[in-house]
């Protein structure tokens, strides 16, 4: 263990958490703005039942395709549903999937990567070949292909997105594991007969955690954007459940209705993705300057 801390000290004198936070805040006001925006969206998602003016699913045939008014700030859609309420509820979907999909991908991808990097040999060759192939596919295309087979719905989206992200996590985890595996203190542990599982848990995982966390935050923005894309394509969140992608889909299917659902939902996606991108970049620069997406 002392070897580990020694190595870290050599690499960089670790400043205190507080110092890091101060540095980030001083250098990047955009990060504060991003965090505030994310907090606002989290609050909206959490308090959705309290602040949404209407039931997001309630249809009303006398109120279809209304333009924004005091009663309906963003107007109503072709089923007379309140668009603002649908957007507020839609934020839950986006944020939960934005956190969940990278998390699942991290767990599966890290397991694959660590196994490949630690054991090497034929296992490594098989996993690496597959990862190399999948990584050459854009995530959206991969997600569309898997969603085509799986179908939509909340858990399927999580699985689809996680599956699309897994290769990225596996690749980073594998490279990092191989680097740590070659460290003298790990070699020594192997030689002295410490069980492999113990070495992985004690030495490998703690040492590769930082880049994996960075990767998770970087993929959050992508997950939110991809969920919206899939829902827009009809492969994600299924109607009538509200999702930002769905709202745009409905808005476009109703071309001669009000443009406000499309504009509003798109702005929401753009600002959340922008905020998470900014935050992800900052976290990467602080935690792990060497990983790039």
């Amino acid at each position, binding site marked *: 263990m002392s070897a580990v801390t020694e190595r870290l000290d050599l690499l960089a004198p670790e400043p205190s958490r507080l110092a890091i936070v101060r540095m980030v805040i001083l250098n990047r006001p955009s990060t504060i703005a991003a965090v505030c925006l994310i907090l606002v969206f989290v609050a909206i998602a959490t308090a959705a039942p309290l602040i949404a003016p209407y039931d997001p699913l309630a249809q009303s045939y006398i109120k279809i395709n209304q333009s924004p008014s005091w009663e309906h700030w963003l107007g109503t859609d072709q089923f007379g549903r309140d668009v603002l309420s649908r957007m507020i509820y839609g934020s839950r979907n986006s944020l939960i999937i934005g956190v969940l999909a990278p998390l699942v991908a991290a767990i599966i991808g890290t397991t694959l990567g660590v196994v490949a990097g630690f054991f090497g040999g034929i296992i490594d060759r098989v996993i690496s070949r*597959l990862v190399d192939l999948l990584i050459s596919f*854009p995530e*959206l295309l991969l997600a569309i292909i898997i969603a085509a087979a*799986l*179908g939509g719905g909340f858990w399927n989206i999580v699985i689809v997105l996680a599956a699309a992200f897994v290769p990225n996590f596996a690749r980073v985890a594998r490279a990092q594991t191989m680097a740590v595996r070659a460290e003298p203190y790990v070699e020594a542990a192997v030689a002295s007969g410490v069980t492999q599982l113990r070495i992985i848990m004690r030495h490998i995982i703690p040492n590769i955690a930082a880049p994996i966390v960075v990767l998770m935050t970087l993929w959050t923005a992508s997950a939110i954007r991809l969920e919206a894309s899939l829902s827009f*394509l009809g492969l994600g969140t299924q109607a009538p459940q509200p999702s930002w992608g769905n709202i745009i889909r409905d*808005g476009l299917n109703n071309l001669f209705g009000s443009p406000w659902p499309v504009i509003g939902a798109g702005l929401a996606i*753009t600002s959340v993705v*922008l905020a998470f991108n900014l935050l992800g970049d900052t976290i990467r620069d602080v935690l792990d300057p060497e990983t790039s997406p």
Partner: protein
Amino acid sequence: MGHFLLRRLFDAVPTVLLVLTLVFAAMRILPGDPALAALGDNALPEQLAAFREQFGLNQPLWRQYLDFLGGVLTFDLGRSLLHSRPVLEMLAHALPFTIELTIVATFIGVTIGVPLGVLAATRRNRLPDSGVRLFSLVGYAVPDFYLGALLLITFSLNLGLFPISGGGEGFWDRMYHVLLPAITLAFLKAAFIGKLTRTSLLEVFGKDYVRTARAKGAREGRVIYRHALRNALLPLTTGLGISLLATLSGSVAVELVFNRPGIGTLLIGAISERDYAVIQGGIIVFALLVVFVNLLIDLLYIAVDPRLRVQA
């Protein structure tokens, strides 16, 4: 060069095989009965049996796999149940629209992105640089289908300047139809290429050979375009590959927005109609396009970097 091309093509064979295997696996091994999925929950048992018979689903898996590979190799991708047309014919009709969109979008994106990157790199930390940074931040965040929807609402619906849907007939009409979707996809591309050009150029500016060029008496324009940019093309080629693939996948949603008769629209339509053979065919086309783009980028490297030519 020709020798290298052959070898590289040969290397792609196992990749294609693996891709096809994965498509097969995705279509057959994932949970759910394809027959049930295709025909819906209230299909009659006879219908299900007929469906399984037609697609060979009652054969053993290895047999299905070989039939599948054989079908792909002989360009026999089956028939669409709903449209009763050969899948290959439908794909052949749709593919040009997707390729056209990708090419025009790439052209626009590169023509805007590269000069933006040069501007940002040469005016580092000044107004143009901040502008490009902001542009790339927004470009990364705006979903392409949203941007497409905004353009469609503004220019096609409200101003009536562009068509609302379709792919067009004849060259000029097709260009007219492709323009808005291409601009949509080019936005993200320009942001990405612009940022990449800036980073690569700034790195190259510090290189010794750029100083050599200045010491020779080359003027700034020549230093930037002949020496620096030419070398920045190496990382840019990688970026071009990534952005080509992003455009390809982005084209699915954008085709849907503009109702273009491309592969994306075909695939998404088939998924919602559960048109099994068309889904499979669409996926195969996309997968092969990805393999092809990666191959193309590898060849582009050779063209751009003479150091890679000797090993060939």
